[in-house]
C-alpha cells in the first residue's frame, strides 16, 4: 500500500532517530573506553574513605581462587575467613580452606603466622603500624596479609593506580545487600567491586580478572557480616602457643 506523505515523514523521522540513537550509543561507548566515569571514582573513593575512617571492625570473607593448569584446565579453590581489625596496629585473620587452616596475628609488635592443625607457628618482630606491617610482611617475607591494601588509608590511590577505564555497571544484590557495581580496567587486568549502597559504603565483593595469564584466572572475595563496633577481648590480637606447638622460621623473601 502506498504510504501517505505523513507516513513517509514518520518513517524518515524514525530512521533519523535510530541513527541518532546509534550515534549516541557509539559516543557512550567511546566515552566508556576513554576514561574513568566520575561517578565510578566518586563511589570508590566514598567506600575507601569510609573504611579508612573505621577504627575497629570485623568481617567474614569467602574467597575463590582460580588456578590454571598447564593443560589449560581451571581448578577452583575456596576458603573462608574471619577478619578482625583495630587501627592503628592490631590485626587478626583466620582462614580455612581447601588446603590450609591458618591464623595471622599482629599485635603491634610482632607478627605471628600459625597453622593449628600442623602445630607450627612462626613469629617475627614487625613495624608499629598496620600499614607498615603489611608492607613489611609482603616485602620481607612474601606474606600477603588478609585484607591487604584495602586497609591502607590511601586505598583509593593504590587501587586506581594504572586504571584506564571505569564505569558504573548498575545496581546489584550481593548476599541480600543492595550494592553499586563498578568495573575498572588497567593494563593486564580487569577488576570489579560491589559497594554497599547508602550511608555505609562497605565493599561487599571484589573480582580480579588477570588478562595476561592463559585463560584469564580470577580471584574473588565476598565480604559479609561487617561489624563496625565489635567487642574484642584480650585474646583477639595476642598469640600464645599451645602445648606441643613448634616454632619454625619464617623464611626471608
Amino acid at each position, binding site marked *: 500500500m502506498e504510504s501517505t506523505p505523513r507516513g513517509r515523514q514518520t518513517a524518515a523521522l524514525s530512521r533519523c532517530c535510530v541513527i541518532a540513537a546509534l550515534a549516541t550509543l557509539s559516543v557512550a561507548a567511546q566515552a566508556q573506553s576513554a576514561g574513568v566515569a566520575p561517578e565510578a571514582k566518586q563511589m570508590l573513593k566514598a567506600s575507601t574513605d569510609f573504611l579508612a575512617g573505621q577504627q575497629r571492625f570485623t568481617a567474614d570473607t569467602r574467597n575463590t581462587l582460580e588456578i590454571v593448569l*598447564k593443560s589449560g584446565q581451571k581448578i577452583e579453590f575456596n576458603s*573462608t575467613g574471619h577478619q578482625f581489625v583495630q587501627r592503628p596496629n592490631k590485626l587478626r585473620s583466620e582462614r580455612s580452606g581447601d588446603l590450609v587452616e591458618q591464623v595471622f596475628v599482629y599485635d603491634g609488635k610482632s607478627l605471628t603466622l600459625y597453622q593449628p592443625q600442623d602445630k607450627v607457628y612462626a613469629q617475627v618482630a614487625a613495624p608499629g603500624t598496620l600499614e607498615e606491617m603489611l608492607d613489611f610482611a609482603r*616485602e620481607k617475607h612474601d606474606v600477603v596479609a588478609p585484607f591487604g*591494601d*584495602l586497609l591502607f588509608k590511601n586505598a583509593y590511590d*593504590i587501587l586506581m593506580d594504572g586504571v584506564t577505564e571505569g564505569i558504573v555497571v548498575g545496581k546489584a544484590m550481593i548476599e541480600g545487600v543492595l550494592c553499586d557495581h563498578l568495573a575498572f580496567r588497567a593494563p593486564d587486568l580487569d577488576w570489579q567491586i560491589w559497594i554497599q549502597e547508602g550511608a555505609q559504603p562497605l565493599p561487599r565483593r571484589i573480582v580480579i580478572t588477570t588478562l595476561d595469564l592463559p585463560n584469564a584466572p580470577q*580471584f574473588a572475595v565476598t565480604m559479609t557480616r561487617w561489624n563496625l563496633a565489635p567487642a574484642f577481648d584480650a585474646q583477639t590480637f595476642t598469640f600464645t602457643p599451645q602445648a606441643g606447638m613448634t616454632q619454625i622460621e619464617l623464611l626471608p623473601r
Partner: protein
Amino acid sequence: MSRTRNPKVFAFTMALPLLYLAGIAPDAPAGWTLLQEAHAVVGAPLTPVSAAGVARRTTRRAVVATSTTQAAAADTAAVQQQQAATAQQQAATAQQQAATAQQQAAVAARPPGAPAAGAVVTALPAGCKPETSNGVEYQNCGGVYYRAAFQGNNLVYVVQ
C-alpha cells in the same frame, strides 16, 4: 599520608591461599592428592589476588617438587630455575646448615635421588621421624633431614 612503596604494590588481598598450581608433570596421574602434592610448581606465576599483583607479579621462587619422581618429571628449564633460586636459599640457610653439619656428617651418604640441601618441598616423603638437635626439630626422612618453615604463607620443608 605519603608512602614510598611502589605504587603498583597494592592488594585486594583477603585471606588468600597462595597456591600456585600452574603445572603438573605430564606423566603424573590426575587427582586431588596430586594437586596437593604438586601445588608448588617451579617457576609458576601466581594467580594474582590483587590488582597490583598483576603488575608486581614475579615468578614464584623455585620450589622443588615433592618427590624425586616429580622432580625427574620437571622439565630442564624448570630444574635450572630451581637451581638458580635454590642457590640463594642455600646462602640464606647457611647458618642452619652449619648447625646441622654434624647431623649431615653422620649421614655418610645421601640416599640416591635425595633432594639437594637447601631445596624446599611442600610435603614430606613418607616415613619421617622427628628428631631434635640443639632445640630445633628436624624430620629424618630416610637419612635426609628436613626442617619446617613458612615460605610466604606456605608451610614448607627445607632440606638440610
